[in-house]
């Protein structure tokens, strides 16, 4: 297709044109076209994407597929992105953080996307502009927001962001906290006790806490066989709980006297109310527990940016139109990924990637004045209950009666079978998926 070639750098474009397109300060402040050296027709619409994680990067790439001419700018806070997905692997030394670190270079160069490293501090939905910490203003025709999650520390007396950065990492955004949790796991005294407290629904990566619990148990089995893990849960069910618990039975003696894992459900008083940091104790609805390692994964809400610019409702999450991911609160603003209210879809990286593709096509259609096509979403989550034991959940989704719901008879978790190959193959598929997934997002 030659449209792109025809859009190679057009020297006739003037500074005034650029100002009109991107805003004055932006032209002054940053090299607008970055390495791509790509200019656009003056009439081309401008899509600004806030957040260069899974949702934002996928959106930019697939919007380029859907519309070769549109101008795309990603504004992302950090020059590098560490995927939360597979960050549990780092805790047990199966991956390094470096291996989970990606940047937007390919998105910028291969897909002609303008990448700005800056922090957005405000949006004006009437004027259709966003403002950044560096003082730049960007005007948009369509705004896409993919801001991830924020934590509700206030739900736990005695726990806060400072403690999380210190001796009580939640490690639920990959980074230094992940490494600190690894350090604590390795330093756990023989026969010690570890606690993982899981969040209330909804939250990012629903199997994440239980995969982490499995990894702790697998580590204990090999290196600290008299240690115990206590999983404190405000819920009575969790995703893939049937195959997870079966795996725990098979691998870690779950339900036996010597189980490496004990799971305390919500009705058994598993909800954590308070952290006593000094005495290494958590208080729950059912009693208090002392431990050598305490990992509270807090309750969550939409990312800070979504809250600041007013895309959340009273639930703390962002309501959307299900067939396009457009905000239900503001027109021409779209919300992707964990922050959005997507009904039956879990808050996973796969979901964000899936939603970004639907959103990209919907934006391209809207810019051309076409009605949106029928949306189709999907999610596949592989988790490891051990390094050679995978469990998965998969579904295709469609919009029905204004909700995103499983399509056909597609939804299902790993069956419990007596086939030894099933969990082994799921674990291999998980590794394949991880390598493929990040490529679909970032390259």
């Amino acid at each position, binding site marked *: *297709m*030659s*449209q*792109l*070639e025809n859009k190679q750098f057009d020297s006739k474009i003037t500074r005034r044109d650029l100002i009109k397109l991107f805003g004055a300060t932006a032209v002054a402040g940053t090299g607008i076209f970055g390495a791509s050296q790509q200019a656009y027709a003056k009439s081309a619409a401008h899509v600004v994407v806030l957040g260069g994680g899974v949702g934002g990067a996928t959106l930019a*790439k*697939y919007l*380029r*597929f859907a519309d*070769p001419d549109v101008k795309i700018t990603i504004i992302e806070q950090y020059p590098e992105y560490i995927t939360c997905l597979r960050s549990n692997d780092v805790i047990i030394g199966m991956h390094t953080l470096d291996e989970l670190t990606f940047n937007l270079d390919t998105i910028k160069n*291969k*897909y*002609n996307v303008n990448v700005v490293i800056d922090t957005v501090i405000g949006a004006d939905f009437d004027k259709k502009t966003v403002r950044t910490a560096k003082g730049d203003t960007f005007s948009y025709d369509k705004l896409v927001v993919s801001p991830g999650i924020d934590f509700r520390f206030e739900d736990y007396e005695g726990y806060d962001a400072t403690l999380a950065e210190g001796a009580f990492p939640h490690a639920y955004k990959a980074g230094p906290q992940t490494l600190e949790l690894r350090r604590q796991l390795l330093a756990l005294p023989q026969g010690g006790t570890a606690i993982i407290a899981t969040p209330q629904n909804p939250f990012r990566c629903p199997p994440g806490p239980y995969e982490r619990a499995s990894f702790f148990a697998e580590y204990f089995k090999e290196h600290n066989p008299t240690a115990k893990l206590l999983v404190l849960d405000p819920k009575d069910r969790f995703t893939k709980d049937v195959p997870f618990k079966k795996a725990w039975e098979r691998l870690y003696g779950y339900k036996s006297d010597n189980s490496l894992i004990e799971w305390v459900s919500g009705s058994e008083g598993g909800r954590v109310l308070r952290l006593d940091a000094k005495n290494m104790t958590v208080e729950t609805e059912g009693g208090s527990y002392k431990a050598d390692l305490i990992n509270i994964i807090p309750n969550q809400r939409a990312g800070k940016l979504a809250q600041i610019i007013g895309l959340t409702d009273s639930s703390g999450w962002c309501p959307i139109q299900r067939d396009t991911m457009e905000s239900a609160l503001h027109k021409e603003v779209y919300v992707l990924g964990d922050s959005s209210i997507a009904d039956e879809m879990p808050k996973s990286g*796969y979901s964000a*990637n*899936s939603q970004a*593709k*639907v959103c990209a*096509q919907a934006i391209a259609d809207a810019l051309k004045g076409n*009605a*949106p*096509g*029928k*949306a*189709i*979403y*999907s999610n*596949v989550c592989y988790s490891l209950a051990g390094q050679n034991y995978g469990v*998965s959940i*998969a*579904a*295709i989704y*469609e919009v029905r009666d204004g909700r995103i719901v*499983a*399509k*056909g*008879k*597609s*939804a*299902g978790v790993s069956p419990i079978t007596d086939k030894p190959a*099933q969990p082994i*193959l*799921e674990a*291999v*598929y998980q590794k*394949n*998926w991880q*390598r*493929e*997934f990040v*490529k*679909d997002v970032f*390259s």
Partner: protein
Amino acid sequence: MKLRNLILSAGFLAMAQNASAEIMASGSAMAWQCAPCHGTNGQEFVEAMPPLAGMPAKQFIDAMIAYREGTRPAIIMDRVARGFTDEEIKAMAYWFEKQPVKQWENTSLNEALEADATARSTGGQQ
């Protein structure tokens, strides 16, 4: 899409085409959903999961229907295939058949756009 707008804005043929689009996502929209495992546009040839790009449509259709009907054992594809009708499977098959048989990293954006355009104009799409 509102039926009233359709009648106002299009002739009978266009209406029939759009009505079918209304009940089914496009081949590319569905095919994009396969990328996290099978590579962007199905162009992943070095992993253990089968590449979909350039796969003969019949092979794709046979496989998906066998997964859906439970006649071919699977780890996960049975659960995925149960989400698709025959027509949807065909639309994906025709779209994938037109994608280049080469690793995604070695494919230029223009090649991808051309393949997509070819698939859209000849595959089971409006």
